[in-house]
């Protein structure tokens, strides 16, 4: 099919392969460029990756953190030029690819085992 490859080509041109590979359960720091009127600044969003949606150029990942007792989740397009960089602060050990169960948990129960403690 010619049409499929045309679309593929288009999407491949959007790919950025500058980020380190990370998995669900990892704690990451996402440096995200925010445009406020005229000014641009870099905001850091630190949290646990609870979902990775792997779909070529359309890939996204969801980062969850608890901010002032309130759970906050943010979905980032992986190949967005607004992502300055992604730092992995720790790697976690999890048994599933979608960590939605963390939404129902708070405090100590919402922890993910670190790879170093295995």
């Amino acid at each position, binding site marked *: 099919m010619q*049409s499929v490859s*045309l679309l593929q080509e288009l999407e491949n041109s*959007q790919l950025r392969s500058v980020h380190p590979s990370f998995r669900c359960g990892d704690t990451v720091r996402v440096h995200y460029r925010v445009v406020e009127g005229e000014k641009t600044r870099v905001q850091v969003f630190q949290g646990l990756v609870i979902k990775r949606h792997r779909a070529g150029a359309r890939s996204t990942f969801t980062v969850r953190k608890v901010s002032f007792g309130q759970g906050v989740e943010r979905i980032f397009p992986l190949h967005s030029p607004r992502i300055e960089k992604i730092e992995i602060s720790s790697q976690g050990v999890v048994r599933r690819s979608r960590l939605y169960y963390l939404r129902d948990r708070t405090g100590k129960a919402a922890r993910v085992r670190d790879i170093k403690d295995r």
Partner: protein
Amino acid sequence: MNTHPGIIGIKVGTTQFFTENGEVVLCTAIHAGCTVVGKRTQEKDGYSALVLGLGESKNKHTTKALRTSFEKRGQKTPRHVQEIRATAEAVEAAELGQQLKLEDIFAVGQKVDVRSRSNGKGFAGVMKRHNFRGAKATHGAHEVYRHGGSIGMATTPGRVWPGKKMAGQEGNKIVSVLNQRVAKILPEQQLLLIEGSVPGAKNSVVRVQGAVKKNGGK
């Protein structure tokens, strides 16, 4: 009559891209490698239009009459042929066999009308086709859950009003979507990206023309 310049193309599929400042634009890609295969002029045909051809068809899929009519002009038989109304000057300027260039016809940000055949849904009931509510599943209802209810009155008027919404064929008809925006033009790949969705399945023929309601209705 829409006489704005336009093209015909094949719907490739939907995708997205990032703009320079990082915004995601969802769009539909249309592969538009159409050529001018004929002309209609005021003197000869009573109206002016361009005949556009798309793709190439195999000999076994064409009649000899059709095939030779193109061969006489030194052209291959296109898979799809459509006429697109154009001004007399535009018809004058076009050459037979010439490939229409996307970048000459469209500009990024321009509003366009898109016309194609929508996805067929078959013979659909009133709930799917007209968003009727259906009937209750309980309280003594018997096998009428998805029915439309009454379709009219009694002896007066003694008939069903014209245009009454009933079950029937849904989709698989030509649909126009007005005022869509050209998101990006890729001349090398002959791709036209249109913001949002475009009716119809992948590989279906799509007609894109300048927006009729944004440019004085001509």
